[in-house]
């Protein structure tokens, strides 16, 4: 199965099961979790089912295109199901069968792997899913994001498409993956790996990025104060990537590292709270009109106790309504 067919199959599979097929976010991110379709949509009581492929940058993992198993950027296929349906494991296993990982032929396992993103103030419990000993998916029940308790809980499935493609195509190097009939992954991605490794490790202008980080941070806070949650969150994503870049460049000391992570987390938290507030003020539009109205009412009634308490209050009336 070609890499692009793998993505098509997954898109089709999840679209047939009610997922919106979103597109990748047009900002540098380290993981699909940063996509607003995940990080923001998991907040609050509104349902949301979406899937998308996301280009993810991990500057520290770059290897100049020389390591057959490591990349400075790769693709995640991410599915978010909110609330997590009771049969989410079965649905997921069905999707694996669709792309050629059938339980009758392969040893499929759910092996404990808890997930945490200190920069997003987010964590969840779940598994890494193994197919014949190979990790093919991160399967997480999101418990918290931006420091806010999540009700309902979103199930997040993150497929490592390159790994799966390598396995299905029986190739030993990521760069040998067939993207389609004619073109390999290496032909498309290898020059990027080489140049970006040089850029991130050797050429990146650290003072410039430090100033970018400060500016993104300030801009995020300014925009939040102006009630512009979505652009503010974009600045949060950008500050996170600036931090990752500085980290890869070796420009951040061990002690400073924690402080930078804390600064990004502060932004993520503020954006998360602002987002839930803005959804409440809109009457949680993805709920039915009546549910949205009672959820807003419950939210407003609790808001003096903080956004977390208000969001829990809104979720409670939706769950029982």
């Amino acid at each position, binding site marked *: 199965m070609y890499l692009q067919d793998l993505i098509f199959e997954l898109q089709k599979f999840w679209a047939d099961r009610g997922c919106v097929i979103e597109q990748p976010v047009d900002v540098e991110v380290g993981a699909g979790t940063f996509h607003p379709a995940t990080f923001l949509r998991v907040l609050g009581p509104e349902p949301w089912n979406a899937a998308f492929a996301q280009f993810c940058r991990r500057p520290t993992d770059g290897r100049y295109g020389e390591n057959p198993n490591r990349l400075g950027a790769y693709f995640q296929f991410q599915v978010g199901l909110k*609330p*997590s349906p009771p049969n989410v494991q079965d649905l997921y296993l069905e999707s694996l069968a669709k792309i050629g990982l059938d339980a009758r032929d392969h*040893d*499929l*396992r759910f092996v404990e792997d808890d997930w945490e993103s200190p920069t997003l103030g987010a964590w969840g419990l779940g598994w890494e899913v193994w197919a014949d000993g190979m990790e093919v998916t991160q399967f997480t029940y999101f418990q918290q994001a931006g420091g806010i308790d999540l009700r309902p*809980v979103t*199930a997040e499935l993150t497929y490592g498409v390159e790994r799966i493609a390598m396995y299905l195509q029986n190739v030993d190097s990521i760069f040998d993956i067939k993207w389609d009939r004619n073109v390999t992954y290496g032909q498309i991605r290898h020059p990027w790996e080489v140049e970006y490794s040089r850029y991130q490790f050797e050429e990146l202008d650290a003072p410039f990025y430090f100033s970018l980080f400060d500016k993104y941070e300030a801009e995020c806070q300014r925009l939040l104060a102006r009630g512009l949650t979505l652009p503010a969150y974009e600045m949060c994503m950008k500050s996170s990537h600036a931090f990752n870049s500085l980290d890869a460049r070796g420009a951040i000391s061990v002690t400073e590292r924690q402080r930078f992570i804390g600064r990004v987390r502060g932004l993520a938290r503020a954006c998360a709270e602002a987002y839930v507030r803005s959804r409440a003020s809109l009457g949680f539009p993805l709920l039915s009109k009546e549910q949205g109205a009672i959820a807003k009412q419950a939210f407003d009634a609790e808001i003096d106790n903080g956004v977390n308490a208000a969001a829990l209050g809104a979720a409670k009336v939706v769950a029982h309504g």
Partner: protein
Amino acid sequence: MADLLLEIGCEEIPAKMLARAVAELPDAVTKRLADARLSHGAVQALGTPRRLAVIVRDVADRQPDLRERVVGPPASAAFDKEGNPTKAAIGFAQKNGVDPSALETAEVEGPKKKMGQYVVAQRFAAGRGAMEVLPSILSELIAALPWPKSMRWGWSEHAFVRPVHWLVALWGGEVLPVAWGGLTAGRRTRGHRFLAPGWIDLASPAEYASQLRRAHVVVDVAARKDLVRAELARIEQETGGRVRKDDTLLDEVTNLCEWPVGVVGSFDPAYLEVPEEIIVTALRTHQRYFTLEDRGGKLMPKFVTMANTVTRDPKVVAHGNERASAPRLADARFFVTEDRKKRLDQFAALVAPRIFLAKFGPNAATYGHKIKRIEGIVAALAERVAFDREIALVGAAQCKSDLATSVVGEFPELQGIMGMHYARGQYAPGVDRVIAEHYMPRGAGAELPASAEGAVVAIADRIDTLVGCFASSLEPTGSADPYGLRRAAIGILSILLARDWDLSIDTLIEIASQQYAGACEVTDTDCGELAEFFRGRLRGVLIEHGLAPGDIDAALGAGFALPRDASARARDLAVMPSTAREVFKRIANIVDDAHSKGERFATPDPALFKSPVEHALWNEYSARHDRIANAFQTLQYRDLFAALVELQPHVAAYFDKGGVMVMDPDPDIRANRLGMLELIKDEFAKVADFRAVSASGGES
């Protein structure tokens, strides 16, 4: 009565949490049934990744009736001036189902453990049937299971280790309507996720394990572990190799499967040039694979994975696992190649500024500081015990260097091992062993350092940590021991017990304290507390060795600074019956008591003896004096104690009716008698304190 079954059907429970839950469940169930006054037989917990279950044999049909006296408010508050029950009394009566007129007053222990006049009622509760009682206690049991981490899912308001999908609760053939998390229990369970995915109706608890077995689920952990072992044995047969023993992995793998199926894979033999510990660790950590060795104990280029299913073609699974593990091995080899580009002392320079324990203060906190102190201790020990000073010092200087290597960064459990490999060829033979062995013993009862140099550095590293922590108020409290100090002390004791070194705990503490001079204050109180800490650990170690607690306490009471000596005394004390200990204990008490009263002690003069028992004891004692002294000198404690046992009847006769009164009114006779008793006491006080009781040696 009938058997009880509770099953909680779940999404995949993490292996370690499952093991813990299965271990703790029987006690939790037993306690709840006891609180519910339902008698029962054996309790067995079962579990797989997809279920946690318990079977209780012979649960009684009914609770027994309950009749008990309950204490209410103070009598003064229970009746008004006219003697009518007050509101408080009426409320108390109603709560306990008795008429207010039936209340009595009695002199009983009140709520604050004080005796007084209180209102009491005779409460009666008719026993209820098991069908009525069990559902609620089982619901509560599920809700109260103590998972280290739990989660919510969907809209759930309740939390559990992973989402719960079904509940089974049966008492005999009857369904117990246990309700939890929006589910109500029935008699339907599920088989293996892929091999038998349908529902299975259970007629009774008795058929639980067998029905599941038919559905490709081995629900008993021990039985499943046996199956894993059998699969490993089959693979040994097929490959001619031997599976490397790994009990931790065995336990984990057992709890990653419902239906274990062993699959062999191969890896590129070229990787065998990498130190094999790395291959074994990479495959076990990342892949949960067992490794195989040939008859000569050499690693084979093969691994075993325990699949959880039967597939159409096992070769596909084997091939997939080979592909999955290849990058892991490539990474491991890459790390070694990178590490080998530096010398070990270059890593030492990288490790030196790292913080070992910040609490030690700015002049003592880094690994660099620690290494300096370890070297100081080793140098001081070289004056006292025999070992190759140079090898030990070089080993000490490099013992933590590998913490900065890529391999140890990836696999922390290979600390010491990688230093050993990297030291080869760079340093004199023997240095490599020191680095590996200074972490030994790596656990309770684990292998000890074989070389004297390894043993010395192992002791130095640990005593340094212990002294530093006691000086920085980081000693263990309760069950919390974040710096592994109990393990460190036990490590030192195990090494000292196994070696014929004249090296006392006090000396070690003193030498280690000196290394902190000017950097971190170590007080006499710290040292004293640490010594007592060692006493507590030594007591534990000797109990593990099977010695009697009473013997250990008596021996340690007479000193524990030389653990090997204390251990020998404790062991040999077994020859002394308790009656003998009693009479010598009496001597010790009399002598100490007299000392505290300022009595005079004289050198015994037989001319002042009045009674034949005095002469007898003196003669018998004198006849054994040289033997006892000699036994003490040559550490023949068994003979020393045997001599005391022989003295016992004479001491007993001395104190018995018809014997003497030590505290004679005549001061000279008194001093003479006390003098003789003190001589005898001095013979045994050095080897055993018969007054020491176990209370003094408990956990500290």
